[in-house]
């Protein structure tokens, strides 16, 4: 049985000027694998990720024919049941550590907060576990980082702290929303290999949301390409170069390449779809 099943998901925002449909009928199922969701700004990829945790505030509405996680109906679950899932069984890594970490709490306090409240651990045990989590994401000096405030960390360190925080409860599914787009390429490669190792070692499911088609293709097993709230193509990452849909092809072709021709880059013809 698959870990996550989503059927005909729709996210609608009721605004003064009428309904805006951010997601218009997305279906997918996920096992213990790495699923990539790619699309440009406004394609609905982030909304799809947030819907799984029901993290969409009014006036946004989530509708679906079915949405189940490990056999449990998450479409009709109570808020109490959702809270038991969030973080513990389904984790989420947000895009920007600058906005997603609490700026007035030390990293150590943020990391141990959940352990002490949720798992009822004592201070010493919680600290030990938090340090272990920082080591797992290859932070070299965890004791110093525990004492630091988020603004004292670089972007790459902050991102790793967020990943560590999400991994402490050992979730079965991790939703990573542009986890590396604020990072330099060499740091990006490091963070990805950390995520990759964790998926492999813990048998975690991963939804990797990104605007970068090449990155997703390299890192995931399967890719959903989204455009205007719809999945336009679903394809195995290894076969991405053989993508059929004109939108996917357009996205692939408009990227410059090292050593590529000096001609104008092919531009996406938006009128086509």
């Amino acid at each position, binding site marked *: 049985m698959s870990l996550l099943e989503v059927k005909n998901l729709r996210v609608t925002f009721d605004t003064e000027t009428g309904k805006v449909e951010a997601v218009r009928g997305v279906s997918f199922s996920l096992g213990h694998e790495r699923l990539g969701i790619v699309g*440009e*700004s406004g394609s609905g990829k982030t909304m799809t990720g947030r819907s799984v945790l029901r993290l969409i505030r009014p006036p946004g509405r989530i509708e679906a024919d079915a949405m189940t996680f490990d056999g449990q109906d998450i479409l009709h679950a109570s808020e109490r049941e959702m809270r038991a899932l969030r973080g513990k069984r389904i984790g989420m890594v947000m895009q920007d550590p600058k906005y997603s970490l609490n700026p007035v709490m030390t990293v150590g306090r943020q990391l141990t907060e959940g352990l002490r409240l949720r798992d009822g651990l004592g201070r010493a045990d919680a600290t030990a576990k938090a340090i272990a989590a920082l080591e797992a994401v290859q932070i070299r000096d965890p004791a110093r980082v525990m004492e630091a405030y988020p603004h004292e960390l*670089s*972007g790459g360190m902050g991102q790793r702290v967020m990943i560590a925080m999400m991994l402490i409860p050992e979730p079965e599914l991790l939703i990573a929303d542009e986890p590396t787009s604020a990072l*330099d*390429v*060499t*740091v*990006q*490669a490091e963070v990805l*290999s950390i995520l*990759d190792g964790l998926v*492999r070692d813990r048998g975690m499911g991963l939804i990797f949301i990104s*605007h*970068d*088609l*090449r*990155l997703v*293709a*390299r890192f995931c097993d399967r890719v959903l390409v989204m455009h205007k709230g719809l999945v336009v193509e679903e394809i195995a*990452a*290894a076969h*991405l*170069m053989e993508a059929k849909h004109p939108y996917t092809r*357009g*996205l*692939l072709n*408009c*990227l*410059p*390449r*090292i*050593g*590529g021709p*000096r001609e*104008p*880059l*092919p*531009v*996406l013809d938006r009128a086509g779809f």
Partner: protein
Amino acid sequence: MALIEIENLTVTFRAKGREVQAVQDVSLSVDERESYGLVGESGSGKSTILRAICGMAPVTGGTIRIGGQPVPTPRGRAFSTEVQMVFQDPYASLHPRHTIDRTLSEPLAIHGMPDRDARVVQALTDVGLPPAFRFRYPHQLSGGQRQRVAIARALMLRPKILLLDEPTSALDASVQAEVLNLLNRLRAEQGLTFLMVSHDLAVIDHMCDRIMVLQHGRTVEEITRDDLAGARMTTPYARSLFAASADRMLEGSERPAP
């Protein structure tokens, strides 16, 4: 003679008794109509070099010459008709409460230039925007449209040199392609010289003839486009940047074994 000559540039920021050398002893020269790229990671000093040219960073050593003349401090009006800059974030670099018309005509007013109306319309047409956009505000435009306005603004005084600070890193891939094409077309049409900064080696490679790799404020390596394409870099750091970037390409690269 090179149009832009920078010799042993050093930039030092001082704050709370601490000194940070953001740029150390960097030299480069860019010929007229050439396109020169600066590439490096966050904190490598690449943007600081552009800001130093414009007089927006504390230069503590070295010289900057434009067309053989050392740049004056403060930079003054003559400098702004020669050198203009396009910034990274089109959401932050346009005045939110000025119409596009006001943003574009301000440099003309400062420099006392005639035919403002015609020039604004021409500038919008040059960057591929309909003239009716004059009366809009930045929040009524998409990111790509705003960056086009920022480019139009930089070109209002017909400068010879355009300093481009990550002009497409805030844009979607398809919009990035449009803006890069626009920049290349304008460079050919107006005979511009580009000094461009990016963290994306593929973008720099597409746009530039020669490339300087920077790390921690120092020059690591200067490399031509052909040598980059042929992976003929000589330093390990330049190679690691290339590898991290080439990794992301689909052709000719192996997926890491699962």
